[in-house]
């Protein structure tokens, strides 16, 4: 029963999406307020029906209804309840359902939270979102219906991929999708503004909190994904340049550029068309990411079952979205006048350079990700672009970005005397250069040029941030003013500081773990001790343990620092029953300055095991930085000025925008 209910709800949601995509848009051109007011109610209705569909699928899992094919393939009576819930988005069809549910959730949020917007603007934003929803709902109903029935009904389900039975992975996809899908709002705002021909500061201000919110989710999703890979895959790696990771990283880079460009558009009215292009690009990158993951064209650790029809559909959808929005851009952009002037040395220039660098890096990652596809399509052979290539590209371009990050926050809008900027920053530059050189000198183990570069840049970031904060405090005269800033409308500066601090923290983590980590695969017999990075790892054997739905071989490894026992690690090899693959569960002793990490390889017989040991210095800092960046974003979004000022202006701009829309 619940299957049919869900299926009907999906179809109804599609019908509502069609209305949402057309009626308000038509109303915005004819000035028909009744038609425009259809937008919010259809957006809300669409969310309600998708929530019903989602609930129906979840009910299928909770009730072990194996007559639904998707449940039979991913559910199991033995599955713990939390994984029955997360199994809803554990495979292709369900994760798409989650995707559209979130899309409609964003649509409903826009409908509810943008009542202060000019009605024309709101109507167009919702219509664009409706069009995106149509694309995805058609995709689901035609190629990946999660409610397809299965007959005869199997007695037991195939169960969720054991790799996904991890709390981290229960939340990782939802966060990532929220980010991906969230860029659709920035995209919708950009298109709506283009259609109205008014790309002004007000548009940028409306767009900013939405874009930043999407970016926060994406940041957290990527951070969590990296942490999960480190924990769960047993290879001790936190980033693999896997196509699917790249698929989430590219929109993040473009989204980061968009956030900065929106700031310029709001404050100075410059970069308007560029901002619009970035908004289109960020969402296109999200769609491209979906294409890469779903179509199965790329070999990746995130192997979803592939079906050519799906790939073709998403590719067609992608070309409609990109082609359509670029056509609108080409049609409207020439009419948009440039914004405020700025000098060569000014914050605008630094932000422009930041944007160019971010986009170049994103483009390079895109090139590396799709190059094998192009190569194969041209019949030149099968290739893969190695991990080192991505590292090389990243290390070549990111330092420039980080250098600029130090200067940008200190530079003034419009014009800054270069001599003054140099005077302010020369000490910080000298100190960080010295620190960098000190870390590059081969006086201790692990020193290298890259080590010096990373630490030097982190010092540069921290020092220049401190200078920016000091400047701010000087103008603000003391801590009480800061408190007032934070409680009223001055949060964005501190948000920037927090997010940039996050970058520095991540940079320190990456530099130290990449240069100082130690790794060894060893054959160990019980009682045998192996020295790694000054720690003694003693293997105390393996015994069998029964888990809720698996049988595990559980190893015990005691770690010593000299004679002192500092940790006991319990890596596991889990077996989830016949027909499933074994899973490696690593044993990790977590620390602020280092992780000690062990995972089990194979049973070599006679009590001996292949064991993988790692020493991972400062690895947690990578994720701590990601969390700081997200917190910075949160602080920026919470700034009351996005609500207060907008509300005050709304009545004045409504009529204007309506007139503009008719023109």
């Amino acid at each position: 029963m619940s299957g049919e209910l869900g299926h009907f709800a999906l179809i109804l949601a599609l019908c509502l999406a069609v209305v949402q995509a057309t009626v308000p848009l038509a109303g915005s051109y004819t000035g028909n307020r009744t038609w425009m007011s259809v937008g919010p109610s259809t957006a809300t209705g669409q969310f309600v029906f998708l929530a019903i569909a989602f609930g129906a699928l979840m009910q299928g899992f909770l009730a072990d209804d194996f007559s639904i094919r998707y449940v039979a393939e991913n559910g199991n009576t033995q599955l713990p309840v939390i994984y029955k819930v997360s199994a809803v988005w554990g495979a292709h069809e369900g994760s798409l359902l989650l995707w559209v549910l979130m899309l409609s959730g964003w649509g409903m949020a826009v409908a509810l939270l943008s009542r202060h917007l000019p009605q024309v603007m709101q109507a167009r934003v919702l219509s664009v979102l409706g069009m995106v929803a149509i694309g995805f709902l058609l995709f689901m109903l035609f190629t990946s219906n999660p409610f397809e029935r299965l007959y005869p009904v199997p007695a037991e389900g195939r169960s969720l991929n054991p790799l996904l039975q991890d709390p981290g992975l229960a939340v990782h996809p939802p966060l990532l999708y929220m980010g991906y899908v969230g860029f659709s709002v920035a995209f919708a705002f950009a298109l709506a503004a283009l259609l109205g021909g008014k790309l002004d500061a007000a548009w940028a201000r409306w767009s900013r909190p939405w874009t930043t919110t999407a970016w926060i989710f994406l940041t957290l999703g990527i951070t969590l994904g990296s942490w999960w890979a480190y924990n769960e895959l047993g290879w001790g790696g936190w980033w693999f340049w896997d196509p699917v990771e790249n698929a989430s990283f590219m929109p993040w880079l473009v989204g980061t550029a968009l956030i900065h460009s929106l700031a310029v558009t709001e404050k100075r009215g410059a970069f308007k068309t560029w901002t619009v292009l970035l908004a289109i690009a960020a969402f296109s990158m999200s769609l491209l990411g979906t294409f890469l993951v779903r179509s199965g064209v790329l070999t990746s650790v995130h192997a979803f079952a592939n079906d050519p029809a799906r790939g073709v559909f998403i590719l067609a959808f992608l070309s409609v979205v990109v082609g359509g929005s670029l056509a609108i851009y080409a049609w409207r952009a020439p009419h948009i006048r440039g914004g405020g002037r700025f000098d060569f040395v000014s914050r605008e220039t630094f932000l422009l350079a930041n944007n160019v660098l971010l986009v170049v890096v994103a483009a390079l990652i895109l090139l590396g990700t799709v190059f094998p596809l192009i190569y194969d399509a041209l019949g030149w052979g099968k290739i893969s672009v190695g991990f080192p290539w991505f590292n090389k590209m990243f290390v070549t371009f990111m330092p420039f970005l980080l250098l600029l990050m130090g200067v940008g926050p200190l530079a003034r809008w419009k014009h800054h005397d270069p001599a003054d900027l140099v005077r302010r920053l020369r000490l910080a530059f000298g100190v960080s250069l010295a620190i960098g050189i000190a870390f590059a000198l081969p006086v201790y183990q692990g020193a290298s040029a890259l080590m010096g570069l990373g630490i030097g840049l982190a010092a540069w970031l921290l020092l220049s941030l401190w200078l920016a904060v000091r400047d701010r405090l000087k103008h603000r005269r003391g801590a009480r003013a800061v408190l007032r800033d934070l409680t009223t409308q001055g949060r964005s500066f501190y948000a920037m500081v927090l997010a940039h601090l996050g970058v520095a923290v991540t940079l320190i983590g990456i530099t130290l773990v990449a240069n100082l980590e130690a790794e060894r695969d060893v054959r160990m017999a019980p009682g045998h001790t192996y020295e790694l990075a000054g720690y003694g790892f003693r293997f105390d054997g393996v015994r069998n343990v029964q888990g809720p739905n698996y049988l595990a071989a559980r190893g015990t490894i005691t770690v010593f620092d000299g004679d002192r026992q500092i940790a006991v690690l319990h890596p596991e090899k889990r077996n989830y029953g016949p027909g499933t693959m074994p899973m490696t569960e690593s044993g990790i002793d977590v620390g602020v300055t280092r992780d000690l990490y062990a995972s089990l390889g194979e049973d070599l017989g006679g009590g001996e095991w292949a064991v993988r040991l790692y020493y991972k210095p400062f690895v947690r800092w990578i994720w701590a930085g990601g969390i700081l960046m997200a917190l910075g974003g949160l602080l920026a979004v919470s700034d009351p000025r996005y609500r207060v000022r907008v509300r005050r202006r709304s009545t004045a701009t409504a009529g204007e925008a309506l007139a503009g829309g008719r023109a």
Partner: protein
Amino acid sequence: MTPTRKKRLILIVAMVVGVGIATALAVTAFNDNLMFYFSPSEVAEGKAPVDHPFRVGGLVTNGSVKRQSDGLTVEFTLTDTRATIPVRYTGILPDLFREGQGIIARGRLNEAGVFVADEVLAKHDENYMPPEVADSLKTAQQGGDVR
């Protein structure tokens, strides 16, 4: 030329030059890091490079996996049903590595014609066959030329 135009021109030129340098760097770096894929048949025919790393994929031949008694070195053979090549790997194999499974190995050929792998990939899905491997198997079975 007005000062604004001049400034804009400088900015654009700087950007174009920057992007040009980026592209040039990216493409030259490709040369060192592109990893070609060959099937066992192609390796047997001598099409694979001897001095450059590449990837090879196929099925692990049944009964071929031999492990050294003390270290972590494993030897096995990889087949596309037409040709078979020996592979040596030192370290921990992925969970899904087993006889009959489709895998991809990355490494280089030594003088003795043994493929010394520094990475072995098996997919985290037992029904999943790496597309490259599926392709080589198909062409090998058709007896055609392997691309």
